[in-house]
């Protein structure tokens, strides 16, 4: 009897179909939330649905969202990088100095990306080669990078950027589609493909879930971690190019406090802070949610302090709600 059972057993691939799986996802909740905010905004303000206004709104979050795409991989692998705002300060300072020395636009972009990548590489080496915990290493480099920027600039401002440099932060690719936002969309698609469809993405998730078992499965855990920090630095470098181009100037206080906004996008996007689970669509939706809320409240002339209260409450609410709902359901299921 038992033997018959074992030979005839067929194990299905999955128990839930694609619709069943997507119905219970965090991303579905985020999608509903962003749709709700969108409609609320459209009802509350007549200016909201204007295509140029919407395009303007994307500038508020696109640079942060680009970093969040890279940071999502780091968090998925069970690590954190808090140094991104410091990286922006240092990279922007380097670009400003290069511009003062008379370098042209292509060289400036290369400097921004290069310094960003170098900062990421330093983080990665500290964490994978010296074995520092990433939270400590990157809190350290956060101060270090910005400190270097202050050392170079003091209270000064660098603004000798060539006119053609402005395109990266202010230019449009097609109609109201800005270069920044187009870049974000392309990178989001790329990040989604890499995380969800490639060997690399699978390895990142395995490391975040159980780094021991990943190593014992023959994955090059440290090399992958190093690459993730390097990519995050590179993303911060790209964000630096865009932000500096948009502002047209560099001060050492540039992008102060951005690391928290970036982490907020990643966490609201459903990436587990302990590593191992999360999706790129979730991160993209979280960026939209935060962007839409900020923009909508801005159109309604809500002051900044109230705005931060609303965002804080929303963050706690979205995370607490599913937990509360789960408890209520569990309590009801019990006799």
């Amino acid at each position, binding site marked *: 009897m*038992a*033997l018959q059972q074992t030979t005839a057993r067929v194990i*299905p*691939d999955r128990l*839930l179909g694609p619709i069943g799986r997507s119905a219970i996802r965090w991303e579905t909740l985020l999608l509903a939330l962003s749709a709700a905010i969108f409609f609320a905004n459209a009802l509350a303000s007549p200016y909201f649905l204007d295509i140029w206004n919407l395009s303007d709104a994307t500038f508020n979050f696109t640079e942060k969202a680009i970093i969040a795409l890279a940071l999502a991989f780091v968090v998925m692998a069970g690590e954190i990088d808090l140094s991104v705002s410091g990286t922006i300060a240092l990279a922007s300072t380097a670009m400003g100095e290069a511009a003062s020395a008379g370098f042209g636009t292509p060289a400036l972009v290369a400097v921004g990306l290069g310094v960003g990548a170098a900062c990421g590489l330093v983080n990665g080496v500290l964490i994978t080669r010296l074995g520092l915990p990433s939270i400590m290493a990157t809190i350290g480099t956060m101060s270090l990078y910005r400190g270097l920027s202050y050392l170079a600039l003091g209270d000064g401002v660098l603004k000798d950027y060539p006119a053609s440099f402005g395109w990266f932060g202010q230019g449009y690719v097609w109609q109201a589609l800005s270069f920044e936002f187009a870049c974000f969309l392309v990178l989001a698609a790329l990040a989604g493909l890499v995380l969800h469809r490639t060997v690399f993405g699978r390895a990142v998730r*395995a490391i975040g879930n*159980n780094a021991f078992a990943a190593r014992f*499965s*023959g994955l090059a855990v440290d090399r992958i971690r190093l690459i993730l920090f390097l990519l995050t630095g590179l993303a911060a470098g790209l964000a630096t190019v865009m932000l500096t181009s948009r502002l047209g100037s560099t001060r050492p206080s540039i992008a102060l406090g951005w690391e928290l906004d970036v982490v907020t996008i990643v966490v609201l996007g459903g990436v587990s802070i302990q590593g*191992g689970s999360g999706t790129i669509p979730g991160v993209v939706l979280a960026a939209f949610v935060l962007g839409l809320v900020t923009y909508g409240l801005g159109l309604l002339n809500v002051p900044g302090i109230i705005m931060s209260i609303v965002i804080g409450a929303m963050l706690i609410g979205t995370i607490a709600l599913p937990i509360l709902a789960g408890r209520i359901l569990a309590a009801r299921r019990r006799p």
Partner: protein
Amino acid sequence: MSGALQINHPSDAEPAALPPPRLELRGIVKHFPGVRALDGVDLVLRPGRVTALIGENGAGKSTLVKILTGIHRPDAGEIRVGGRPVSFASPQDAQDARITAIHQETALFDELTVAENIYLGHAPKTRLGFVDWSAMRARATALLYGLDAPIRPWTRLRDLSIAQRHLVAIARALSIDSEIVIMDEPTAALSHKEVDDLARVIERLKGQGKAILFISHKFEELYRIADDYTVFRDGRSVGAGRMDEATHDELVRLMVGRSVDQVFPKVPATLGEPVLEVSGLCHPTEFDAISFTLRRGEILGLYGLVGAGRSELCQALFGATTPSAGTIAVEGRRVAIRSPADAVRAGIVYVPEERGRHGAVLAMPVFENVTLACLGAVSRHGFIRSAEEFRLARHYAERLDLRAASLAQPVGTLSGGNQQKVVIGKWLAAGPKVVILDEPTKGIDIGSKAAVHAFMSELAGQGLAVLMVSSELPEILGMADRVMVMREGRMAGLFERAGLTAETLVAAATGNIQARSDQP
């Protein structure tokens, strides 16, 4: 304590002369989403007697323990303690009913002392309400003395061995004056001598009239320790009775519905050319001058006491630790193994002892675990091909007779035996030449054991070389072509299968005789 309570059954005892049950379960049912964990099980525990709970992994033993300790509530059925029906809403209720469980990994606190662990939550208090440390130490000392345990109450727990921790857990059970003691695989990590000590402690508890539920996969112990048995299969009780009236074969048949000789399906091996040649391998602290050759089709058993350096040797072969001297050659070519990735590339794979920590990624689904070490084979240009991935996972799941609801089920929700099958499947999918298995059947049931053993034989038959670390003598004697014994990090002997006895191996492992080799 009440040592006068003599209930140890005399040889002429009739079943009618048994003491009334302390604990009685009738028709317990427990469903989890998608799983029928318990489907009407019965169980009786009597004071002064040890009842063995026997069953494959996944038969419902752990669920039953969780119900008895108030962690889960049954969907249907009746629990009676001392004849009165009870229901446990929380672990506290179970403790109030004087039920204690000693788990495989009992929740004790490493940084606290032995006495603090024993009295955590019910420490003796002074009149002012402070912890009465001297009373606590005195009582802990008395308890440990009563268990014949040479442990000082003020030692920190992290400094104790696993066996000593068990004794502390037992002392804790006694300190709350439990009448019903559940021991869930207490001997899984114990050496022979430690099991002897535990048996003596259990004898004492019996003398005090405790009703004991004893869960173990090792029949040898069950016959020594238990008075009665209950067998679970697929969430049902399929048999119960007195241990001395049941033969080993009967119990195994009840458990799995198959016979014993299927547990060690050893196929006579035809040995081929050498695959793995290890020579003079040394580690700064763990082992010294290890040399051996592993041939195609061979299963080499690696036996020794816990701490003899066997796992450390395996991990060095797998690149998880770095040896200080010596060479490793695969198929005649010397290989430098500095990381597990190097080892996998060289064709050496390792099924670790700690499945949950080193073997499987518990939160990830079955199919992702199976393909984790061979992602290159199911991908093109770095992109994973989902259909091929599922095909490969299904192939190994079916070959290993995996019991899972679906391939997308997280590995952590499978039973221990099935988790092990996933880990083994992962390595087979990587196409290895040498498979190192570290305690491959530790803590898994006979059914899964038989599946793992059959598979081991099949692998050897296909020309793989297998290095199997095991502390279970029947497994070593049943499966290995040759046996290497390690003692204190050194080779203590290499024995051929023919005419090998358990006594020889134990003597070599403990150093009671001079190390002997089959080569003159």
